[in-house]
């Protein structure tokens, strides 16, 4: 390298640097400049498209890679990681505290990008570095450029523009809009809150014609809680899709690979109106859409349908059924005789593990911890006791009393986020926290199809608000909270999920093996490379 670079944060210095560079490197840099300009133009065009279009998840993944501790690895120019700094800087994140962190990340990214540019200028790998280098100075002065990373609609409920957009989209797809209910606690006013008394089928015609009947049935079952639990929801979703595919017929002049995907979009909107989609459902939908678009155009319709049905069956078989077998095998190694295992709520996977362990003659007893208002632990208790396992049942308020007896904690997960956080039923983080305080090992069991490329460090940003009327209880004929809506200063909050930091989790048992929490992004990257 024939010159050293002193990195200074201010924009003017950056420009100065560039001028200096230009003077020093002469011809080479002008070629670079040209390429840089070309890249800028491409970036502009891409950002304009981003305003309207592509899935938000991609952006968040890139956002994630900026914030993740493993920065150098993810900043390698070969990937699309380059637009990250632009998006990171220009996005209007609702959490103000993230801004200084991001600009630091920006600065580091800038510096690295510039170093990369120099190193790479001779090797010809200019794309990534130049993009970031060129867009860096562009981005910082224009932080308010409309190059906004798109936040998902379901966490922008307090933004009227987003609501209008959603309403228009639903109208176009002929999906009824479900209205929010009741007063929302201010910290969560950006999330939807629906009431079970206003079902999503109020405006759907009977018989359902726009939306396939099995999807209507599924949506109802979601909104009433008849199908609850990450695995159950995914399996039911795939089953409904199988029926949709069965009844589908390609209209003339259309290709199955494109038309079927378009047909599925209103169904997915309807389902997310009934209940926000889970991470596992999102991954399943992505898989299906990919499979559908990979159908070759010369394939006949019957053959295509048969192939899709098989794909769905094999997905369920591999990712859910076989995965749970594999996880139980690993988990059973961790269960020794005389163990006292604590479980929380009703996780289908954890119940399966415990039942298998019991069948393999391990001697252990279980403590089931439960919490209001769902009281799912009762169902877990029923299944375990039916099997013959000795169980104790407590409410979460008795957790610190019962923990001294416990030797291990097994938790299920709704999703595992890319920064190692575990998203699970509300209360899980408390269990993990108290278990850590008592030095009890916490093991999270999660299939890999629930791994999600999102990043969250708190439970506020993206969560689900359940029906607030579930919190109302009638004792001795008296319902004190009956008229809670008339009290202006009272709000009922019924959270569904929370996130547990990886420091409290000792091990994650997946079908790929037993990994620490921080290896989640590695698994995600391996999966992406596979696909």
């Amino acid at each position: 390298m024939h010159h050293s670079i002193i990195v200074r944060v201010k924009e003017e210095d950056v420009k100065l640097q560039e001028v200096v560079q230009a003077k020093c490197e002469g011809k080479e840099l002008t070629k670079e400049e040209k390429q840089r300009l070309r890249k800028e133009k491409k970036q502009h065009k891409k950002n304009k498209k981003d305003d309207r279009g592509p899935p938000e998840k991609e952006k968040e993944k890139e956002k994630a890679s900026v914030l993740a501790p493993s920065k150098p690895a993810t900043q390698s120019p070969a990937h699309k990681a380059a637009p990250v700094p632009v998006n990171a800087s220009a996005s209007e994140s609702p959490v103000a505290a993230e801004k200084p962190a991001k600009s630091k990340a920006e600065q580091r990214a800038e510096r690295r990008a510039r170093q990369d540019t120099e190193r790479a200028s001779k090797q010809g790998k200019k794309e990534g570095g130049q993009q970031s280098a060129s867009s860096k100075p562009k981005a910082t002065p224009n932080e308010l450029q409309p190059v906004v990373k798109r936040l998902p609609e379901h966490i922008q409920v307090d933004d009227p523009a987003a609501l209008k957009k959603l309403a228009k989209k639903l109208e176009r797809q002929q999906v009824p809009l479900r209205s929010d209910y009741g007063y929302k606690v201010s910290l969560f006013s950006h999330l939807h809150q629906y009431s079970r008394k206003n079902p999503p089928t109020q405006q759907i015609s009977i018989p359902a014609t726009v939306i396939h009947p099995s999807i209507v049935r599924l949506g109802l079952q979601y909104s009433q809680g008849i199908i609850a639990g990450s695995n159950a929801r995914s399996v039911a979703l795939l089953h409904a899709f199988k029926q949709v595919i069965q009844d589908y017929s390609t209209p003339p002049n259309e290709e199955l690979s494109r038309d079927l995907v378009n047909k599925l979009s209103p169904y997915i909107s309807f389902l997310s109106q009934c209940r926000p989609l889970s991470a596992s459902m999102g991954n399943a939908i992505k898989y299906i859409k990919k499979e559908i678009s990979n159908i070759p155009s010369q394939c006949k319709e019957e053959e295509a349908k048969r192939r899709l049905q098989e794909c769905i069956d094999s997905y369920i078989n591999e990712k859910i059924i076989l995965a749970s077998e594999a996880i139980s095998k690993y988990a059973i190694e961790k269960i020794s005789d005389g163990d006292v295992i604590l479980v929380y709520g009703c996780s289908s996977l954890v119940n399966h593990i415990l039942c298998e362990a019991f069948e393999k003659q391990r001697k252990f007893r279980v403590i089931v911890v439960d919490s209001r208002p769902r009281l799912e632990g009762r169902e877990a208790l029923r299944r375990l006791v039916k099997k013959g396992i000795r169980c104790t049942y407590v409410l979460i308020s008795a957790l610190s009393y019962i923990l001294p007896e416990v030797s291990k904690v097994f938790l299920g997960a709704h999703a595992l986020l890319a920064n190692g956080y575990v998203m699970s039923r509300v209360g899980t983080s408390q269990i993990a926290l108290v278990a850590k305080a008592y030095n009890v090992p916490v093991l999270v069991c999660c299939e890999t199809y629930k791994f999600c490329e999102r990043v969250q460090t708190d439970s506020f940003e993206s969560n689900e608000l359940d029906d607030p009327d579930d919190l109302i209880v009638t004792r001795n004929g008296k319902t004190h909270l009956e008229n809670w809506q008339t009290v202006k200063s009272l709000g009922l909050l019924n959270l569904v999920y929370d996130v547990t930091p990886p420091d409290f989790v000792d091990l994650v048992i997946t079908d790929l093996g037993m990994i620490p929490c921080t290896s989640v992004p590695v698994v995600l990257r391996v999966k992406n490379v596979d696909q």
Partner: protein
Amino acid sequence: MELQAVLMAAGGGSRMMDLTYNTPKPLLPVGNRPLIWYPLNLLERVGFEGKHSVISENKPSKVSLKVKMISTTDILVVSCDLITDVALHEVVDLFRAHNATLSMLMSKVHEFTETVPGQKGKKKAGEQRDFVGVDVTGKRLLFMANEADLEEGLVLRKSIMRKHPRMLIKTGLLDAHLYCLKRSVVDFLVHNKSVTSIRGELVPYLVRKQFSKSLNSKNATEDTEKNQKQQDAHHNLELLSTSKEEALLQLARERSCWNDHRGDMSEAYHGGKLRCYVHIMEEGMCYRVNTLAAYIEANRVVPKLFEDPPIHPTAVVSERSLVGSDSIIGPICQISEKTSIKRSNVGTSSTIKEKVKITNSIIMNGVTIEEGCNIQGSVICNNAVIGRGADMKYCLVGSGQRIEPEAERTNEVIVGSDQLMEI
């Protein structure tokens, strides 16, 4: 297709023969619209497009069913005499969400306040009551029997009590005769000609079958049923519905942490495949126009709900007449001077001459009322002629009858002699 509608227009109106001996029940005017308009309107409002009507020969029993088609979808059976403003999705949602075999609508019975013509003595309360047993949620139908079928008393099977220890038994309910039935039930009906009435036989049978052992243990030697063949056919049809699709549904249900009851060790729905649900309307309007009292009540209430002008634009109403605000006048009527019409319905093409006072009455189509009549609380059927100066209080004048002038009738049913012969 998710659901097909079947409108039962077959019933002969056996409980109001005085009204229907000349006019088929679906065409009786209520609020100046034929009775069948109301269920059709309900179905259309909700989104049904093609409908099937079933009209069979005049069977004077309870509503009979003759399904001439083998349906490929689930069906929604509606009776032609149902007038209701129920949110239909409530009934259908139960059918969809729980994958139910039967889902029906019931409503609280309203007492009829109007005096019914021709009624002698007080109304006999408690005749033919329905006993309906529901579980704690009020949605699952556990028991249904009519008083007429119970000889000594109400008998509850132990298997029901073991599965649902808390059951609420209600008696003040009106069956709206609106049923969502699964396709397998329709097939069962087609193969079992012995079942003639939905309300009387099929529904109680299905409700009982929820808890019968044969379904769960696949053992066809249950002998408490009426007909071995019947039960076999049903049993076979149950087997038809379990297929590979069910395996996935079963998996989803296993992984789901939901149960419809708690306190015992069984899974959701106690593992039963046959489920019956009921939606009980607390508020709102629901009438079944199958008795004279109901007919009168419906005529009173229904016109208020629709936004039609009370006086049809083609009716000729003279200025010196007094038409009350809660009366409706049908098309092509002629109301002459000095008539006073209060709280009444006047049908199509009726002619009302001068100085007539009509209060609280129902005048059907094509009726002629001569001058000076005084009609109170009566029902005058199609094409009747009331001679001048007649004074009718709480009478029912049958179709096509002529009342002589200066007649004074109170609390009578005036029908033709040919009708009296019909049994």
